[in-house]
């Protein structure tokens, strides 16, 4: 096993991987738990037609399919960024490691994404520079080779450093862009052909006719749209791979960090907030909502009191108070956290929880109403007539029949939460300032708005990426709601009596 691996990746790489110390942050645990649950759900739903049908309806919509492709790109970035580890401080060189010596690990927590983007992470300039710039944004006093001092824009240390003469830049960028796009297109073509071949194999069709089906858009699921969007994705990725190591394609920020790197690192934060928030509180919301509606009486009173009270506190203020208190707590208990990443992660998780506390009440109320309705429905009454225990009725009869509400809520909440993160970071109660997030990027760049000319690239990068994610989520949410909500579903299939 080991030898095979060694042959594939080479002994040096393997040794490097072995030296890493894995770090499991709290949110990582939850993210992978979520992925695991999703996989189980998909496996479960695949064998059940009534669960598959609405999903097929979702993905049969071209817009939803396109949104799903974009979403999955974000998810891949987010997952890569969720595998954390620390590098050893002294890399064990080529000597044979006979004696066991204690290895110290760096305090900085890295992720797989960091490894992929290492050049971007490490190519730090002095301060602001515009996208594709070769010079810094601020003038400095420079010493010319002849000893005279002038104030001018200095060359960047990394951005466009391979150019002899900065005036070649436009030509160079264009040439490399074309090369990048062409590469992307090539890879895409390969992928597309493989995909069509796979489809042909699954449907037992000759390759040619399957290809014609896909091209004409006559397949049940809109593969043509999927491949079209993927073409754009492939091209964008290849372009970035070609250019990003040589230029700061989105510019650099105040401390000279690459904005493209920051933007990608922010993806995980957004995804975590968008998903974990609802999921952390989901069990409580579902259980309490169903119990309130099913048992009624005093149970209902207590649960209603609970969520009315929580709901009465304006959301932002509750979040602000809680996060401020958490900040005080973290600051007064520095010994609890080994690394800065762990501290920031704890704050992120806590933010998810507190956001969840403010948002679960809506779902709980919805579920209570639905459970009240279901309590009187004949099949629940029939179960009562069999003497089925209460919690079995809750889990077997009520829960599966309110899952569509839960699903719709989770999907609909996602985009709102991603947007909320930016606002909260602006207010100062968002994620840890040391954590990459679009909110923090906007908040940092906002202060530079008054500069002349304006520093716009951080803002724009954050806004565009956030927009893409939120738009994709909204389109997907629309499709999910239309497919799962019985009201819209019945409206779609109007039948007469």
């Amino acid at each position: 096993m080991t030898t095979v691996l060694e042959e594939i990746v080479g002994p040096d790489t393997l040794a490097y991987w072995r030296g890493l110390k894995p770090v499991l942050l709290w949110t990582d645990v939850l993210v992978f738990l979520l992925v695991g649950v999703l996989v189980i759900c998909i496996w479960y739903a695949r064998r059940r037609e009534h669960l598959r049908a609405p999903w097929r309806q979702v993905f049969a919509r071209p817009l939803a399919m396109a949104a799903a492709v974009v979403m999955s790109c974000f998810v891949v970035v987010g997952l890569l960024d969720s595998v954390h580890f620390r590098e050893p401080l002294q890399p064990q060189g080529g000597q044979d490691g006979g004696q066991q010596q204690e290895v110290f690990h760096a305090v900085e927590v890295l992720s797989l994404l960091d490894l992929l983007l290492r050049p971007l992470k490490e190519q730090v300039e002095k301060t602001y520079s515009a996208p594709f710039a070769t010079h810094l944004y601020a003038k400095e006093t420079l010493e010319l080779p002849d000893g005279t001092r002038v104030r001018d824009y200095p060359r960047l240390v990394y951005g466009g450093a391979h150019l002899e003469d900065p005036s070649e830049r436009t030509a160079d960028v264009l040439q490399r862009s074309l090369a990048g796009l062409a590469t992307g297109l090539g890879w895409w073509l390969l992928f597309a052909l493989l995909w069509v071949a796979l489809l042909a194999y699954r449907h037992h069709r000759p390759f040619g006719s399957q290809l014609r089906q896909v091209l004409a858009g006559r397949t049940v699921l809109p593969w043509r749209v999927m491949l079209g969007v993927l073409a754009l994705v492939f091209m964008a990725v290849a372009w970035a791979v070609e250019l990003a190591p040589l230029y700061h394609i989105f510019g650099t920020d105040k401390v000279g960090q690459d904005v493209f790197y920051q933007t990608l690192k922010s993806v995980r934060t957004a995804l975590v907030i968008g998903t974990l928030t609802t999921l952390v509180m989901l069990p409580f919301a579902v259980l309490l909502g169903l119990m309130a509606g099913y048992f009624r009486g005093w149970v209902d009173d207590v649960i209603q009191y609970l969520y009315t009270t929580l709901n009465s506190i304006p959301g932002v203020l509750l979040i602000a108070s809680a996060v401020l208190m958490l900040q005080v707590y973290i600051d007064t208990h520095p010994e609890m956290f080994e690394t800065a990443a762990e501290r920031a992660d704890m704050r992120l998780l806590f933010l998810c929880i507190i956001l969840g506390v403010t948002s679960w009440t809506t779902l709980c109320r919805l579920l209570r109403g639905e459970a009240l309705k279901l309590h009187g429905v004949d099949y629940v009454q029939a179960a009562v007539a069999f003497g089925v225990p209460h919690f079995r009725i809750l889990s077997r009869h009520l829960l599966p029949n309110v899952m569509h509400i839960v699903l719709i809520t989770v999907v609909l909440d996602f985009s709102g939460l991603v947007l909320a993160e930016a606002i909260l970071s602006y207010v100062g109660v968002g994620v840890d300032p040391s954590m990459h997030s679009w909110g923090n990027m906007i908040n940092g760049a906002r202060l530079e708005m008054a500069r002349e000319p304006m520093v716009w690239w951080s803002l724009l990068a954050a806004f565009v990426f956030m927009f893409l994610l939120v738009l994709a989520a909204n389109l997907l949410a629309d499709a999910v709601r239309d497919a799962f909500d019985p009201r819209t579903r019945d409206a779609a299939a109007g039948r007469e009596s």
Partner: protein
Amino acid sequence: MAETLLSVRHLCTRFETERGGFLAVDDVSFDIQRGETFALLGESGCGKSVTSLSIMRLLPEPAGRIVGGQVLLDGVDLLGLPELAMRRVRGNRIAMIFQEPMTSLNPVLSVGDQIAEVVILHRRLRGRAARSAVLELLEAVGIPDPERRYGEFPHQLSGGMKQRVMIAMALAGEPDLLIADEPTTALDVTIQAQVLDLLAELQRWRDMAMLLITHDLGVVAGMADRVAVMYAGQIVEQAPRRSFFAEPRHPYSRKLFQSLPDMHKRDRPLTVIPGTVPALDRPFRACRFAERCELAWQDCREQAPQWHAEGDGGVRCHLYDRLLSSRRPLHAAAAQPVTSEYTQREAPPAGGRLLEVEELKVHFPIQKGLFKRTVGHVHAVDGVSLRIDKGATVALVGESGCGKTTFGKAILQLIRPTAGRVVLEGTDLTRLRGEALRRRRSDFQIIFQDPFSSMNPRMRVEEIIQEGMVTLGLERDPQRRAQRVAELLQQVGLPVEARARYPHEFSGGQRQRICIARALAVRPKLLVCDEPTSALDISVQAQILNLLKDLQRELGLSYLFITHNLSVVGYLADQVAVMYLGRIVEHGRVAEVLNRPAHPYTEALLSAVPAVDADGRREVIRLEGDLPSPAAPPAGCHFHTRCPRAMPVCRERYPPVTELAGGHRVRCFLYGEG
């Protein structure tokens, strides 16, 4: 011969759904003469409502679309009119009333304003003139105190009142044609009789034509001049009422008559139409009824029948094609359904008391005021005593809101009674709690009315049937349990493969069979059937009734059969109890009560049921007004407010039980002192 008002020619209407399109109406043609009532009869899904909506061009867009044909109103094709001109037809030349009076009125506009809209739009009346026209209309449809009702909102009116308002609204434009789409299906029998009377009277008086859409042969018999029967999107037979009831021609029409339950058929199983209505989403090349028709032969399965016009009607069947029917093999003519026959009236149930209900009361508190004090009670069930013998069927009859469903649930302890005893084989169920009650639950089970909500859509049939066995620990071995599920499915007439499927894959009748299997799984002694057939079509109802009767003979079950349908009672029950406002007013053997009703309420109820024969019109004892609220039942005899034979004493106290001959008991002063 009167002149033709409306002529529908080769109408085709298509519906597009996510799963593809289907022709809901396929080449439908008929004429309606001025002043006549034309009935369109058919079971659910046959396309009769779509036909009426197509005439009005009110199909739900963009799902429904008229794809061919003509609708000629006085020779003008409505389908060719621009929308603006069509609006002058709707409400003015043709008006429509719908099935659900509860949802068909705008909840936030007063009923007067809603009627006034039509008067203003089509009769160009304004202000006071419009108002007085509306008041006249309200008066005309028999709404008492129209001045006050004018400003009231729909939710303040009872169902019957709402339908009267709908009728007033339809009449407001003084239409030539009134389309009534199942106008009385959502109403109780006594209210139905009122509304039908009203419609017939108004029609005579205004010389208005009426297109009556219904599934109820009784309503057709009482109202129609001519009848058309629809099946799977087509008209299969058309005839004047008299000849239709005297001699229905299409095999489907004949079967409909035969599958009606009634007292005289109780000694034999009902004739049923096997199978279900075919799905419309495929092209038909053969007769649509062939699969279910016992008279069908080769030709029926190979080519679609033509329309054979005969006199004032016609029929779409190969039997009436000289050439084809001559090819019909002779032995097919003798084919009769092979079912076990009850040649003799089965012996009276073997006796022995199963259930004894004593003075059962279920009161729901009404809370009001600052601290939600209980200020009164809804007397849903107010002192009911009933006895059910082993192997017997007791029917509980009453209109909606009389407390019969509550009573059924109270027996099962789904609703805990306020007072009284429910003694099942010596054990008082009302005293049992928790585990003790749970252990007895296998003895009594329930079948619900709505086959669509009575099964968890997320569970497979197998899981549904097993649930009771698992919970009550009746069959612990999974293999034996699976075997029992197979047996049960067979017993209720479903294929064993049904076990792995989900409820939504079955039709209404099949679902009801699954529900019966679920109840039988725990081997109950008593089955409470809460209107098990009222959501089903006639032909399917017959199947279920036969099944229930077979099961009773086989397993010795006792039924408490809750229903509002008196013909079902006559067919199925041994004893019948009539319930009014939470109390039983009359109780006795079926033959006694149905043939010689003692209580005026029972009499009225019986007379209100439309008779299915050519001379459907007969004297109906009209009950005034609606059922009073069970929160504040009238003093004295609850029925005195509507009773045509009320006496002073009826207003003072509730009548005691009077025993008549043969165990026939009644609570009415007409018999007490006499």
